[in-house]
């Protein structure tokens, strides 16, 4: 390939990351037209749902915070090569932990809120540790233990709401009694958004960035995620790091759960997580497992999801449309996010300066350890110290 041809194609390569996004929008528009809805009107309704007024945008921010917390945690587990699908349950256990404090302890806000946050992070971390120990000791894949634990967490919530924490006026199965006001996070303009929670979320993002960039632990996690066998040769304890990575993620997810009960709602509700855990998995996949991309993508997802709720109110179209749009984007990025992958733009390297949308290799977590042991991959120390 000559120089001229390369530069002819460079614009295509530069714009390529937009292709999956546009494709997702086109498919979603086609679905809308199938329902005799004008895509322009629908997207307009979604836009208004996110930006049409102060309260709307504050809702976007309030939804963003727990999503950001869960996504930041997932970057850590993905780095260690773990598919923490149990994050949904970890959010719920965090919500339950915070609710327990809010319902059982009385005191001023400066006592209650740290206690609630502590209980929430502990709840999430322990639920995650369960998944981790089932993996390291019981050889149960974290996808399945996580999924089962998600469902058990939902069942536990329903039990608490309809049983011990049932409001005195009777079991409505919808939620507990609203918490005392000292137990709630201080919220802006009577909205659902708590600035304090956003500060905590950003602290979490910075902590994850620091852990992965500047600590030995982060290096160990990378080693474990890239190549468990060479990590083992380098003396990394896969059991210890697996449990710690999961608990770190679980603690952040639990904090997200606390934000859900203490600022989005004011009580423990039936669907307290609202699918934020699964959404966070999509966020991190779209961010190609890089923490710095997480806040912006999580914000975008929050806009789409909040917008689709307004869409349902305005047009009677199912709010699952938001999930379809975000899901399609991730799918298309996975399938043809990288121009190089499809052989467009020639050899890798011609796309200089344009970061790949996806890393070359995804976390190796799905490869069973037996396989790693039987194939004896070479020790790639450089890849680990990358």
């Amino acid at each position: 390939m000559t120089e001229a041809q390369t530069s002819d194609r460079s614009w295509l390569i530069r714009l390529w990351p937009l292709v999956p996004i546009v494709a997702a929008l086109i498919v979603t528009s086609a679905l809308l037209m199938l329902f005799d809805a004008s895509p322009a009107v629908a997207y307009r309704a979604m836009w208004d749902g996110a930006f049409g007024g102060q309260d709307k945008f504050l809702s976007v921010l309030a939804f963003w915070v727990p999503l950001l917390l869960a996504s930041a945690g997932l970057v850590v587990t993905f780095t260690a090569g773990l598919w923490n699908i149990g994050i949904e349950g970890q959010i719920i256990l965090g919500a339950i932990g915070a609710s327990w404090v809010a319902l059982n302890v009385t005191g001023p806000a400066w006592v209650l809120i740290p206690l609630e946050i502590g209980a929430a992070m502990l709840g999430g971390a322990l639920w995650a540790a369960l998944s981790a120990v089932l993996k390291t000791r019981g050889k149960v894949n974290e996808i399945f233990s996580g999924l089962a634990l998600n469902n058990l967490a939902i069942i536990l919530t329903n039990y608490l709401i309809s049983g011990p924490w049932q409001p005195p006026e009777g079991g409505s199965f919808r939620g507990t009694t609203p918490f005392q006001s000292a137990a709630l996070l201080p919220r802006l303009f009577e909205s659902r958004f708590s600035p304090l929670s956003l500060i905590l979320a950003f602290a979490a993002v910075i902590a994850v960035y620091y852990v992965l960039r500047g600590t030995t632990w982060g290096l160990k996690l990378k080693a474990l995620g890239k190549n468990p066998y060479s990590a083992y040769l380098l003396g990394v304890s896969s059991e210890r790091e697996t449990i710690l990575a999961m608990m770190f993620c679980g603690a952040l997810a639990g904090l997200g759960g606390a934000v859900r009960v203490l600022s989005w709602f004011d009580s423990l509700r039936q669907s307290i997580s609202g699918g934020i855990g699964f959404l966070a998995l999509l966020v991190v996949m779209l961010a190609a497992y890089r923490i710095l991309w997480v806040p912006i993508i999580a914000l975008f997802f929050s806009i789409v999801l909040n917008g689709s709720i307004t869409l349902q109110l305005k047009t009677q179209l199912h709010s699952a449309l938001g999930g379809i749009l975000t899901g399609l984007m991730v799918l298309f990025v996975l399938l043809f996010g990288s121009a190089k992958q499809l052989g467009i733009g020639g050899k890798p390297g011609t796309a200089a300066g344009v970061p790949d949308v996806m890393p070359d290799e995804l976390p190796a977590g799905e490869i069973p350890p037996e396989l790693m042991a039987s194939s004896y991959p070479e020790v790639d120390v450089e890849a680990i110290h990358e």
Partner: protein
Amino acid sequence: MNNAQLIAVLASIVLQASPLIIAVCGEILTERSGVVNLSLDGTMLMAAMTGFVVGMLTNNVWAGFAVGALVGAIFASIVAFGSIRLNQSQVAIGFVLTLLGDDLSAFLGQNYTRMKGVTVPHYGIPILKDIPVIGPIFFNQDIVVYFAMFLIVGTWWWLNKTQPGLKLRGSGERPTAAFARGVDVNRLRYVYTILGGALVGIAGAAYSLDVKIGWSDGHIRGMGWIALAIVIFGGWSPIRGAFGALLFGATKALATILQRAFPEVSVVAFNSIPWLLMILVLLAVGSDYTERGIKAMPKSWQQPLRRVLRVSPPMALGTPFKEG
């Protein structure tokens, strides 16, 4: 409980387990070739929705099954294309498709919830259905049940007794060796992923058209994951897998009976059974403690116990194969 009631319960367990058996057999074909199709939950929801809607609109239950199979094949071909051609993570694509299938089925099926559609006709097999006990349980059922039975035997036979089945297992166990023997590993993986997906789609349609009739949001959410867990519990064998599906159905039936017998016990306890069971059976077949327990047994027991309790996945499961 008298005998007639017991037989009715057993027959309903067989019916309830049938779609799971179909999905499990499909996924076993896929996984034995070396590919994990993790999208089962979303695929089955989409197939259940499309199968029900098409069946209702055409007033033809078989058209519903055909569309369900088609939807399953499409989802599976995305997994196959993404992992084989594009070398992407099977788990990532499968998981995204799970969520996407859930949302798509909710959105596309929004105008068809809680409607009356067509259902699979009941068909007792002459003569066989009159055998005492066994007849009413297995042979006085719907076509879905007979199809599931056929699949158990058919999949087992195909995998273990035929030449193509040997190639299929080869590409899942030792793809390099199979390739050296002239097997087009990636082509086989495409074929069995898509075929397995079609069966999973039929399983989804079997729910909405027969076992759990109708459509509503998240109609059979969770069943796909249970099928995936049963594949592991069943040690990637159709006969053990079918046993696992029946066991799951039996536990659910037992929970329903117990719930009626002890109404004072919270419904929570019964709802949590499938998920606790999922963790426990995976723990039983996978953990080192089971192995230690087996080793503590008398020598002559060890081998049979190991065969019952331990499973091992196809060796190349989830790993891409590059020619040359």
